């Protein structure tokens, strides 16, 4: 039978009543709090008993202090004289217990309690909440601007959605927690003004559960997108490894804080040391993420064997020599959009015995929603190209030979190019055939249309 148990507790620092009731329930179930840690609370098995818990706050307490402050010792002695034994501290919260029937309450002035809790919150939590919200807002700004200004580019990569949703969730979670605290503070003051006790804490635990579930959904979406865009195991392994390393970094920082505490390093130096180490490790980790994940995506893509929907032989009906095939995923893609480019080159011999080099390049853009389809089409048509042949613009062309809904052809100042934009339901294809001597034949267009339209 195990004698210790670790639990991840989600109580807020101001919810003294929630902590007291939870610990009393745990004691009744035979689990006594031994240590309230930053990430996990440690419980020790004991005889199930009615134990009263009460918490108070010490403003000068800190998890970075090398030991209990003079103030904490004074408080502990005062509580001890009143029959309360110190159990643990959790940030500025000091947790005491007693088995006495009718102990003197730790706090006998509700207004003073609210004032001290407010000071603790402003010292320990609210600035961090505010900082997290500022960072969250800043991180959301880029993807939101892109979503509004250039939705096509935004949906070209699933990473934009994952980043935006993650930071929006964090923003919502921290913002809600800050608002819930202010609501508790206001209601407590109102209650005390009428001679009542502090108000009950709001539904922050339910909010935390909703946040966790939504974050898991976001994580699951990220993994599905990684697998969809990268396909290979190396990408999934890299992503999972990143998460494990992230947890390890957090554990390393926690160990560093404890180590410096044991070595009696002052509070200020401990905070600076952990902060510097944290920034360094997270920079390294993000460097690995950006370059490692991109590298693994590229590697996995290159290793894949992808069938080519259209080759030079399909287009012209004649054989080619020295055929080279290449393809590249132009962006990671998202569940709403994917972009893949194919490149084919080869040499053929004309009836005159001349060997000519020809290339075919086409880009397939699959779009899942009508709105995004129209945006992508507009984006392409507005995209003027500039070359030595003058400004090039897309002009409508006959779609019938291609079997497409609409077709545009790229025109330059003095003529037409061999570049076409084919519009199929849910798919746009930009095709460029560098055949120097003649335009595409109707048969070639029909064959290209058949090969490049979405396969139902």
């Amino acid at each position: 039978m195990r004698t210790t148990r670790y639990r991840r507790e989600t109580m807020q620092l101001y919810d003294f009543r929630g902590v007291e009731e939870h610990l009393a329930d745990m004691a009744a179930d035979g689990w006594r709090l031994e240590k309230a840690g930053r990430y996990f609370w440690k419980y020790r098995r004991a005889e199930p008993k009615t134990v009263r818990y009460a918490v108070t706050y010490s403003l000068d307490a800190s998890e970075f202090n090398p030991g209990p402050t003079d103030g904490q010792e004074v408080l502990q002695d005062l509580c001890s004289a009143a029959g309360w034994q110190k159990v643990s501290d959790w940030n500025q919260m000091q947790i005491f217990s007693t088995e006495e029937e009718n102990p003197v309450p730790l706090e006998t002035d509700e207004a003073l309690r609210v004032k001290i809790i407010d000071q603790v919150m402003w010292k320990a939590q609210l600035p961090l909440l505010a900082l997290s919200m500022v960072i969250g807002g800043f991180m959301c700004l880029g993807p939101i601007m892109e979503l509004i200004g250039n939705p096509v580019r935004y949906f070209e990569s699933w990473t934009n959605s994952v980043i935006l949703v993650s930071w929006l969730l964090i923003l919502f979670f921290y913002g809600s927690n800050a608002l819930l605290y202010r609501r508790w503070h206001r209601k407590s003051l109102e209650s005390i003004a009428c001679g009542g006790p502090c108000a009950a804490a709001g539904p922050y635990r339910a909010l935390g559960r909703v946040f966790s579930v939504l974050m898991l959904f976001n994580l699951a979406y990220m993994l599905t997108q990684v697998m969809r865009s990268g396909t290979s195991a190396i990408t999934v392994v890299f992503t999972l490894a990143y998460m494990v390393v992230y947890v390890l970094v957090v554990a390393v920082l926690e160990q560093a804080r404890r180590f410096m505490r044991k070595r009696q390093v002052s509070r200020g130096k401990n905070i600076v040391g952990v902060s510097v180490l944290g920034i360094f490790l997270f920079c390294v980790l993000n460097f690995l993420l950006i370059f490692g994940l991109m590298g693994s995506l590229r590697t996995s893509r290159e290793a894949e064997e992808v069938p080519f929907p259209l080759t030079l032989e399909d287009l012209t009906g004649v054989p080619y020599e020295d055929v080279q095939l290449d393809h590249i995923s132009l962006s990671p893609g998202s569940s709403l959009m994917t972009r893949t480019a194919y490149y084919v080159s080869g040499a053929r011999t004309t009836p005159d015995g001349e060997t000519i080099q020809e290339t075919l390049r086409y880009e397939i853009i699959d779009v899942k929603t009508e709105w995004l389809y129209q945006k992508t089409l507009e984006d392409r048509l507005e995209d003027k190209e500039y070359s030595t042949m003058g400004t090039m613009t897309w002009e409508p062309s006959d779609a019938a030979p291609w079997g497409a809904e609409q077709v545009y052809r790229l025109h330059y100042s003095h003529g037409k190019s061999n570049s076409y934009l084919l519009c199929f339901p849910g798919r746009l294809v930009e095709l460029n055939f560098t055949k120097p001597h003649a335009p595409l034949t109707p048969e070639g267009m029909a064959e290209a249309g058949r090969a490049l339209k979405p396969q139902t």
Partner: protein
Amino acid sequence: MAREKFQSLTEQMFYILLCLRHELCGADIAAQISAMTRNRVTVGPGTLYNILDSFLQAEMIEETKVEGRKRSYLITKKGRMMLDEEYRRLTTLVEDYRACIGEEEL
């Protein structure tokens, strides 16, 4: 709670200052208040700690002795002035009450 930083004192603050006319350690303050008020007023250790801390910061009391972890306190001139001020305020309240209720009863 200190009513807007000691413009007036709460009942618990009043009794703490009253007890500290003589040097006392923290635990004894709570016991003396209970005895003085026949358990009508109780000061919890958490509340006592925070009030003592705010009185020290406002220089209304001073630390007189530190024996190990045991600390003793004594009221200062400033604290005594606050206590007297509170007494006068309370007396005024009582006098006003007597004046009003007395008139009605007459």
